[in-house]
């Protein structure tokens, strides 16, 4: 009854549920399943965590690591351990002081297999953590670390709210998360939105941040135009024009370390031959694939253009259908209307992508059309995230995948390209690349690392394990009422403390 009477009353009295002056409302496709840094599985959760929790270090405006909860740190000369001194006077949202015990607890809880944390991999390199006193933490590493502070971005949790190192999803922390960030979670609302209010004493310019679940992408840009929202994390390419023309909206471009690719399954008979892979690289018109979905930089290797590891000497494979035909013939294929393999059967390729990847549909349809009009049959498969995990990651049941990789500041491509890499579902194996990646991982000289990874770029480009596509220009959209906005390319809210409404 309440649910009917209340809207009735509200409507009758003409009260508007508008936001108060200092509130920033932003939209997410899906509300966080759980607000808990140990069990994060989606970007919307990561962004909410960015507002509520803090790590020992975070990015400064030049995207270099700077101390956050830490005040100062010292890495031992042998690079096998470090000592961190925490900032003075930091308190949790419930008033308790933040101490070194919390840091030790967090690391141990993340690593504990009993907790089944999704972040366990983030602390695998730490051998042990010790609280030397209330403000000092000592960490020892399993191997020499060149820049350990770059890996200490994970969020710190309050030890006093847990028993020992046991952390469960179903614990009370789920309904009342406590962090040390500038905002604290005030309520999980009925409509799946989350209200976060500024902590007293904080000098953040936003009094309140509200996360709203707007599951229909058609509404997101519209709601911003109608001033029902103040921020959009990612603008769909088709909405760019409308938002650009609106004077009350400002677009903020940001370059994420993520790039699209068409990955080949290295063990499939058709794609085993390097000539075939090369032929496909020449056959696909990458610029034409990019055109309908937005703007960006076409790549030749596994790094973004602005990355120090990008090898600008590697040339782009030109779109050359004749060369492609030559290569296919050299590989034993014949053309009579359609390309036929050595066994006489039509060359058919199954291309899989995740169905909720924005604009992937357009790219895949376009790709299919390109290849089919040149005689190669393409079967597109739009998989749900669950099917993707099963078919692509576990069963390797695909010919080609259309997807993207996103990297944090470290741009560590080991997992994707090393033959032992956990994310190398393409089955790429190159002893030379393995060697280069191993060396780069252990190198403590930034110049050496740069040189090694540029060699990796060249080697990978020559092997054609995938067609490198592009980095897509991304834009965030904000109401012009929000001032001093700088958007973090991955976590979005890292510098939200400076924003003002």
């Amino acid at each position, binding site marked *: 009854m309440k649910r009917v009477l209340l809207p009735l009353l509200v409507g009758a009295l003409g009260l508007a549920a508008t936001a108060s002056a200092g509130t920033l409302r932003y939209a997410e496709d899906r509300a966080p399943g759980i607000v808990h840094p140990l069990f994060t599985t989606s970007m919307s959760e990561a962004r909410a965590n960015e507002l509520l929790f803090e790590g020992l270090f975070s990015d400064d405006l030049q995207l270099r690591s700077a101390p956050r909860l830490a005040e100062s740190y010292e890495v031992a000369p042998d690079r096998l351990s470090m000592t961190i001194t925490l900032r003075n006077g930091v308190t949790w949202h419930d008033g308790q002081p933040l101490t070194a015990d919390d840091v030790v607890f967090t690391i141990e809880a993340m690593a504990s297999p009993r907790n089944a944390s999704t972040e366990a991999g983030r602390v695998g390199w730490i051998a042990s953590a010790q609280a030397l006193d209330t403000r000092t933490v000592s960490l020892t590493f399993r191997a020499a670390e060149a820049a350990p502070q770059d890996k200490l971005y994970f969020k710190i949790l309050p030890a006093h709210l847990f028993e020992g190192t046991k952390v469960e999803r179903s614990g009370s922390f789920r309904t009342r998360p406590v962090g040390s960030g500038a905002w604290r979670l005030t309520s999980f609302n009925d409509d799946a939105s989350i209200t976060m209010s500024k902590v007293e004493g904080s000098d953040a310019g936003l009094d309140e941040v509200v996360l709203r679940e707007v599951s229909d992408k*058609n509404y997101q840009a519209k709601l911003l135009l109608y001033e029902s929202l103040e921020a959009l994390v990612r603008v769909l390419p*088709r*909405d760019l024009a409308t938002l650009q023309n609106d004077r009350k909206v400002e677009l903020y471009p940001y370059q994420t370390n993520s790039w699209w690719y068409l990955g080949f399954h290295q063990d499939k008979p058709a794609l085993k031959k390097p000539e075939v892979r090369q032929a496909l690289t020449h056959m696909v018109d990458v610029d*034409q694939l990019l*055109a*309908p979905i937005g703007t960006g930089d076409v790549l030749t290797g596994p790094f973004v253009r602005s990355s120090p590891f990008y090898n600008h000497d590697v040339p782009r494979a030109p779109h050359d259908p004749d060369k492609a035909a030559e290569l296919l013939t050299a590989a034993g294929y014949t053309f009579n209307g359609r390309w036929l393999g050595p066994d006489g059967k039509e060359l058919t390729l199954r291309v899989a992508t995740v*169905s*909720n990847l924005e604009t992937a*549909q*357009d790219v*895949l*349809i*376009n790709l*299919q*059309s*390109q290849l*089919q*009009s040149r005689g190669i049959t*393409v079967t*597109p*498969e*739009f998989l*749900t995230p669950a099917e993707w995990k099963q078919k692509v990651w576990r069963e390797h049941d695909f010919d080609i995948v259309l997807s993207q990789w996103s990297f944090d500041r470290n741009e560590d491509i080991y997992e994707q390209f090393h033959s032992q890499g956990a994310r190398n579902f393409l089955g790429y194996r190159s002893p030379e690349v393995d060697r280069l990646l191993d060396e780069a991982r252990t190198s403590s000289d930034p110049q050496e690392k740069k040189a090694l990874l540029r060699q990796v770029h060249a080697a990978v480009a020559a092997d054609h394990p995938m067609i490198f596509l592009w980095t897509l220009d991304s834009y965030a959209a904000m109401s012009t009422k929000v001032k001093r906005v700088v958007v973090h390319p991955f976590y979005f809210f890292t510098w939200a403390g400076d924003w003002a409404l």
Partner: protein
Amino acid sequence: MIRWAHHALRGLRAHDSLLGRLGLAWLLLLVVVALCAPLAGYPVGADVDLSQASQGMSGRHPLGTDHLGRDTFARLALACRAFTGPGLLAGLVALTAVPTGALAGMHGGWVAHLTRYVAGVVASVPRFVLVLLLLTIYGNTPTVLGLAIGLAYVPELAEAVRARVEGLRVADFVLASRAHGVPEGRLLWLHLVLGATNQLVARHLIRVFAFTVVVESTLAYLGGFGVQEPQPSWGNLLVFEWGRGLGPQVIAPAAALLITLAACAAAAGFVGGRRHAG
């Protein structure tokens, strides 16, 4: 045999109305288009032409093109396959309810109770929810869609047939035929099932078809289910151009949906007026 079939078919017509005839004609047209359109050789999967993107109506593209340059009219026609397939499969599955219901109605007793129970169990899960459930569990293919929709309609059809047959079981002409020594099997199939239930069954089949059309387009809107690109379906066509303005690319599939559903309603009225057996 032929005379009997002719008699049964003629009995289908309850209300002779223009709208009813038009409705049936439209549905038949859809089936014909679904069968013949693929023969025109439109290159599904190789039809992207960015130079023709988002065109309006013209001689070359009677209903314009979408934002990847694909012709709307051709895809609209080809889309008929998307639901005639599952629709017919669903109809076939639903038809299994007819002999089940008829047997239950004929014999009564525990057979009738069992049928009623099973029908009640399946019917307690709302149809759309059941379809969603089956699609998430068993994968998103037109076959599963057809089977799921058919299953969702089996209880209703079985119950209706059972009620009708039960009502006629003790009718005079049945008793009389029995007295004359006509064997029960032939009696059941020729007179009761086909003669008395043809209107009922036809009406339900049309409803199954309408439901398929609605479910297919709704799944395309909700996203992630239904016919996947590049195969066209009216839902797909709508959703692909959703949010890019109100041109023929959006209006045509919407209109096609509305006309088809109206045709189903008119045809259902044409076939049989009454909902319950009595």
